[in-house]
């Protein structure tokens, strides 16, 4: 089986968006977590890192997954690999 150039591009774009979103995921989880003690400024009443741990990171996770689904569903159609229903 030989996939076409168009398919290869699709997969490259998929890997790129996966990488970018994963980097964001890593920053809000582990980078903010590592420097939690230093990110202690007040944010609407919370110390910032406490807010991130309890709420902020969760909102970012939801947005990451939502954006990925939207992006990929569009990419499927652009590269003609979407499912016919």
């Amino acid at each position, binding site marked *: *089986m030989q*996939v*076409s150039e*168009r*398919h290869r591009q*699709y*997969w490259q774009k*998929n890997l790129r968006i*996966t990488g970018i*979103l*994963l980097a964001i*995921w890593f920053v809000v*989880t*582990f980078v903010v*977590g*590592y420097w*939690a*003690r230093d990110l*202690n400024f007040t*944010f*609407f*009443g*919370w*110390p910032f*890192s*406490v*807010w991130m*741990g*309890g*709420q902020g*990171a*969760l*909102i970012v*996770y*939801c947005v*990451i*997954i*939502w954006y*990925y*689904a939207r992006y*990929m*569903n569009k990419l*499927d159609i652009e590269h*003609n*690999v*979407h*499912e*016919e*229903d």
Partner: protein
Amino acid sequence: MAGMFEHGAKTDSASTASFKSQLNKVYSWYAGGFIGFVLVLAVLEQMGLPKSWIGFIFLLATVGLYAGIGIMSRTTDAAEYYVAGRRVPALYNGMATGADWMSAASFIGMAGTVYLTGYGGLAFIMGWTGGYCLVALFLAPYMRKFGQFTIPDFLGARFEGNLPRFIGIIGAILCSFTYVVAQIYGVGLITTRLTGFAFEIGIFVGLGGILVCSFLGGMRAVTWTQVAQYIILIVAYMVPVVWLSIKQTGVPIPQAIYGYQLQKVTERENQLKKDPKENEVIAIFKERAAAADAKLKDVPGAMAADLAAAQKKLDDLKAANGPAADIQAAEKTLAGLPKTAEDAKKAYTAAKTSNAARAVPLAGMPPHAQQFAGDPNGDAKAKDAFDTSRRNFLALIFCLMVGTAALPHILMRYYTTPSVKEARDSVTWSLFFIFLLYFTAPALAVLVKYEVFNVLVGTPFDKLPAWINNWARVDPALLSVTDINKDGIFQLGEMRISGDIIVLATPEIGGLPYVVSGMVAAGGLAAALSTADGLLLTIANALSHDLYYKMIDPNAPTARRVSISKALLVVVALAAAGVAAQKPADILFLVSAAFSFAAATFFPPLVLGIFWKRANRWGASLGMVAGLGTTFYYMATTQPWLRGVFGVTSPIADNIWWGILPISAGLFGVPIGIVTIIVVSLLTPPPSPATQELVEHVRYPDLKLGTA
């Protein structure tokens, strides 16, 4: 409603749309009906319906409802039984995954953990939500495209053979079984609280509800029940928190406002640390710990002294003709004294540790808003404490996240959607529905803490609210209060509270009517039952589909496969209930262990199997064994209960790596699994062209070769 679940196998878009709108209608009516049901009970309570009746009605109505859905969705068709006919719309699959995912630990335990450990507890909140990013980016769409029935199916097809499949079966059973035992334990606890049945009977009543549902209808019944359970559990979780928020701040959105309550809690913490009465309580615990320590230095002498003192007290009481109850108590104390030096040493050590643990400010809770223990700018010891605490926090998040993305009962759910696109959307919905509960939990913890610090602390003992005594009566291990310094006033240090009752007691802490307590308990039951359903199906399917059908008898007719799965379901459920009825000591540890096991066993082969064509049979097999083996070895040598089981005697300190706690053992298992797969795959021949084509096939929702 029955008609809805009988929907035929056609999946053209018109019938899909009508199926969806029918679902919307049924579940809106259902949600309305549930709220109406609660309101009617609330009115009946005001008219004098006894509390025990409310508990019974909640238990019977909800378990009956789940069983009813199970009976209506009964099936013997393999596609229906294993993957609900692959036509569950994204939104409903999201709700079902939410209920499948949120277990007794999430519903009952998580907010309590945050209450007790502050920032450290947020590791669970982040870990159990952030893992869905990995599910969405690495697994769900590809699993759906692969489109079989179970996770071992994927391992068997991608890694060419029964060896990887078999290791997968072992891994799936190991993590699902440890997890299901904890759920059934939770079911028993709540049923006991709702009805007053004995714990063992409670387990079997709850089990009945689980079995009718998954036994008759497999994945189809479980899916529609889980949607119903999600609606109950989310309503039950929100109502008391919103109420507390209105009561304390006047704003009905606790998630947006609790930052200001957290500031007040922090202020109050500083006051309590300086409070002379609190310090008096701490001093008493210190004295007691010191006394126990002194006894340890001369065990035989202390035993003789204890015996003489108890005997003297009894004699004095008898001589003075004291009340019969006091005499009995004194006799009991005397009879309960340790008989051998060995026992006495154990008892004194226990007294020393437990008293020393309570001789600390804020009843041992760290300041709620403080990130990590220790101090990075302090002396060497404080620096070390800070580093270890931070390292463990991040390691725990890592294990929970990777574990989330590797638990077979969750990944299995993405086989049930109609298409790859719906699988992607379905992860979005899953996390959204999970998010609703998880981002409320930290708010609940802070609001309850505010209530305890400001309302309870300083109350005279005879004016304490009734819920404290009610819970203490259920089990003193869950909640106990004693007037340690005999001043008649309640101090924070005088209460011992288990995290497991925080959520269940929130309605009472907030002064809500009992019907809300019943509803919260029913929500906890829904959470535990729904997860147990999903886990039991996973185990039964691994045995019937993967072991029996794929490995032992590939010619077995469909009907026999489904019947075998059903029979196994009952056996596994009874076995799990049997283990849960023994109340194994370290149930919380078992749950967390399941995550590390899943992470180390499944995550590396699944992800590499999709993203690296060169990964082959030997790499995956050895990688899974190495990952699981490392995790297991680390736990067995560092976790006290497992050390006992395996008779490990070398000191824990020698076996600990970088101060990582056994709960995060997956931190070592996952990278070792990945490295093993890569190294071994490169040393052995690449997979066949057909397998490489399979990888190509799962990467694109529809390749359309020839048309492209």
